[in-house]
């Protein structure tokens, strides 16, 4: 029997701690598949954020480091400057990137630091019990917005791709989802484009993946997909915001 689709080698043979239906699982899988396909396991250094993906280094079989909450882009800057021949993948959630780490991601993007960021946006803080994230939607109930987020008091949800598309030295910027096989393929392709941009030395790349959090959205995995497709994409439109190849 020859496999036409197999579990990637770059994923360690470990059961993850992620909930069933979690978007992190898909993102890890796609990154691992690309590491296999592109043959870069021996060159890749991945960074684990603080958040549900804090244990990323238990799952990806490449050199890995933790980073303090939000500081991942700064750590990635140091790593890539020190090991420019390595492929540096910065992996962050919505709190890590868009709350506590806003300064670091903006400045890394503005400088055009040559690493690739996978930004998993599930509009909630999972690890700590379902609190509001900067990307939590208007009206969305969380542990710290029990009556629903209101722009008047919490500000509107933060759109990271739109924010970073202001910067000249961003080479690849895309927002995708994982809510269908086609969407998963598109996400994999987008992450691939980001890694290629890095390998060609073109500067900062970021892929924002709209991901489900069935546990804190209080939805089934299938219902979470519907929430993303029908509601979340209204606030966070999908698309490619910057592609160096497309100008």
């Amino acid at each position, binding site marked *: 029997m020859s496999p036409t689709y197999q579990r990637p080698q770059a994923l360690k043979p470990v059961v993850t701690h992620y909930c069933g239906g979690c978007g992190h699982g898909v993102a890890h899988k796609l990154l691992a598949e690309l590491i296999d396909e592109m043959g870069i396991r021996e*060159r890749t250094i991945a960074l684990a954020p603080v958040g549900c993906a*804090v244990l990323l280094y238990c799952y990806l079989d490449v050199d890995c480091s933790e980073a303090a909450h939000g*500081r991942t882009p*700064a*750590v990635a800057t*140091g790593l890539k400057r*020190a090991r420019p*021949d390595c492929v540096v993948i910065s992996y962050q959630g919505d709190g890590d990137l868009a709350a506590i780490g806003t300064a670091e991601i903006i*400045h890394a993007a503005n400088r055009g630091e040559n690493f690739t960021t996978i930004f998993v946006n599930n509009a909630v803080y999972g690890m700590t019990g379902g609190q509001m994230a900067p990307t939590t939607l208007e009206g969305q109930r969380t542990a710290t917005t029990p009556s629903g987020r209101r722009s008047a008091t919490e500000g509107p949800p933060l759109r990271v791709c739109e924010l970073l598309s202001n910067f000249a030295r961003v080479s690849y910027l895309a927002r995708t989802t994982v809510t269908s096989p086609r969407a998963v393929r598109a996400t994999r392709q987008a992450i691939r484009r980001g890694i290629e941009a890095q390998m060609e030395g073109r500067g900062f790349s970021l892929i924002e993946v709209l991901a489900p959090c069935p546990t804190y959205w209080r939805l089934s995995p299938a219902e979470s997909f519907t929430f993303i497709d029908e509601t979340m994409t209204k606030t966070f439109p999908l698309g490619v915001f910057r592609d160096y190849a497309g100008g």
Partner: protein
Amino acid sequence: MSRKSTEPPPRAEGTVGSAAAKTVTAAGRGVPVAEAEAVPSSDLRPHRIPAGERLLMTGNEAAAEAAIRAGCRFYFGYPITPQNELTSYMAREMPAAGGTFLQAESELAAINMVYGVAAAGRRTMTSSSSPGISLKQEGISYLAGSELPAVIINVQRGGPGLGDIRAAQSDYFQATRGGGHGDYRTIVLAPASVQEMADFVMLAFHLADKYRNPVLVLADAQLGQMMEPMAFADLREEPLPPKDWALTGARGRPSRIVKSFYWLAGDLEAFNQHLAEKYARIQAAEVRYQALSCDDAQWVLVAYGASARVAKQVVVEARRRGERVGLFRPISLWPFPTQALRELAEQVQGFLVVEMSLGQMVEDVRLAVEGRAPVAFFGRTGGGIPTAEEVSRELRELRAAEGQEE
């Protein structure tokens, strides 16, 4: 007359580390080329300032040049007075040396960039002044918890809060008690001259790699800004182990993880015990101090850094008058020279601790002396510098109070 024990390296030799130091190059050690060496041979370049040539330099610039000569090729900083000259020097000279200079968006970002380079196995440093060092505490805790080598220079200014830009020594607690969260220590070296700014920065890189620990060089605005004659030494280090933990891409080897997170019950306690053992080794091997005129002293001033310069003047003048006064100058603030002070306490009538703070190191002196002799304190704070007259007067009153005839 000075009694020296584990003293700072003599200038002519320029050795760092123990007396058994010898010149080491990466090629000579026979380590695998793929492994991250402590100081890659490509980083050992000739410098535009010849070793041994006497010149005038400010403390800030001397520290920067020393770092480059120690093989540091990655500097991350953020402007803050009174250490901006160090950052500016790096902006010019680090790229000229083939290294990377980056003005980070904040001190917070800078310490995390240091973390990234350290994790990748290269020598790296950052510098700041008191409020900026406060920002770095999280990052320093992570460095210690991940056992990453790095050098941090604090050119102290007055505090708390925004404070002022003049010299102070009010970050002693922050420096010597870890400073950030968790059970950890940083080695802390306290220069008292421009020469020592250079020498101790070089020593700091060596100790950081030797123990896989962050090292803090605790200076102040006066030391940073003053200009004195000095000379740079060649880098001579004891052999250091290869960095077989560094992230370099898992070529032909299992993947590595740099982390400080131990979530399984019992794992973190075991790791903390491992750190405790490391710190015990450091305490046994890396105590440094200078004892000036202490052999027959009845009264000993205890001071470090800029305060020690004033205290030294007081001692010299007192000795001229025939008074048996000495100066005990801690150089390693952590590990603190507890044992040497304890021994000194057996012979003296009392100590006078002089600091530019409300009294921080004095607590460590009292702990070391353990009541064997009185320990008095004189301090100026908030940017005030003690004068020799003030300290002499304080000493005179102390001696009178203790019934010392003169």
